[in-house]
């Protein structure tokens, strides 16, 4: 399933106004509520990217650690509203110190890729950019 099927929509105040069927189980209860009330401490991490999408009118994509794992979020603006497509990449495995270290290394690598080479979103969305 592509991220086209997994999305939620925020209004200009970051209130969740729509949740796709694929995300309903995990995010359906957030409908009608501010995303920041539903996802404590996420505002500091996500909001700068959301604001960038609103201000530039362009898609923004980033990888963030939140809620025990990494997620790639693709933000598609439409005026002040945003459609957010989240894709879970990896989970922190807290079972033993060994699994914790291994999963932290993977997460570190995922976040480092983004830090080294921020995605060119215009190219990313364009088939002409492919070799």
């Amino acid at each position, binding site marked *: 399933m592509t991220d086209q099927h997994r999305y939620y929509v925020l209004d200009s105040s970051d209130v969740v106004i729509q949740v796709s069927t694929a995300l309903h189980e995990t995010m359906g209860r957030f409908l009608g509520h501010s995303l920041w009330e539903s996802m404590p401490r996420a505002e500091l*991490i996500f909001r700068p990217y959301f604001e960038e999408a609103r201000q530039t009118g362009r898609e923004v994509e980033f990888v963030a*650690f939140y809620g025990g794992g990494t997620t790639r979020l693709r933000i598609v603006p439409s005026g002040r509203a945003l459609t957010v497509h989240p894709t879970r990449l990896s989970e*922190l495995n*807290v*079972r*033993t110190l060994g699994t*914790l270290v291994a999963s932290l290394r993977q997460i570190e690598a995922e976040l480092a890729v983004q830090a080294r080479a921020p995605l060119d979103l215009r190219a990313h969305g364009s088939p002409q950019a492919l070799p």
Partner: protein
Amino acid sequence: MAVGDRAGRYIVLDGDYRIVEVGPAAEAGFGPLLGQVILDAFPDSRALYRPYYERAKRTREPVAFAQYYDGYVMHVGLEPVGSKLIVTWDKLVMLDVLTLDGLKASLHNALSAISTWEDRLTRQRRRETFRVVEHDA
């Protein structure tokens, strides 16, 4: 059994490390596992806990240690009673996995807690050794 001071947070293992009794406060986590060998119920804990179980079983002396498992640093106490082993525990630190900052801070706390407990247990063992030496002298 001297487990009243643990507010019912204990389990009892038989000689094969089978859970044969579960304290009232441990019922939610361990009740469904009654009758199972604890090391089979949590196979990835085998390397972390078995050496301590073996030591308590072999020496017939109480054993205490700090251990990380499943998102928690716990202080664990083992008390041999007859052929059985009473296991008690206190959660010292819970990992905060919500954000990276929270994770970093809680990992720091977890490592500090383990270090503090190791120091405390080392000092305790040293005191016990001195007492034995003084007694023998």
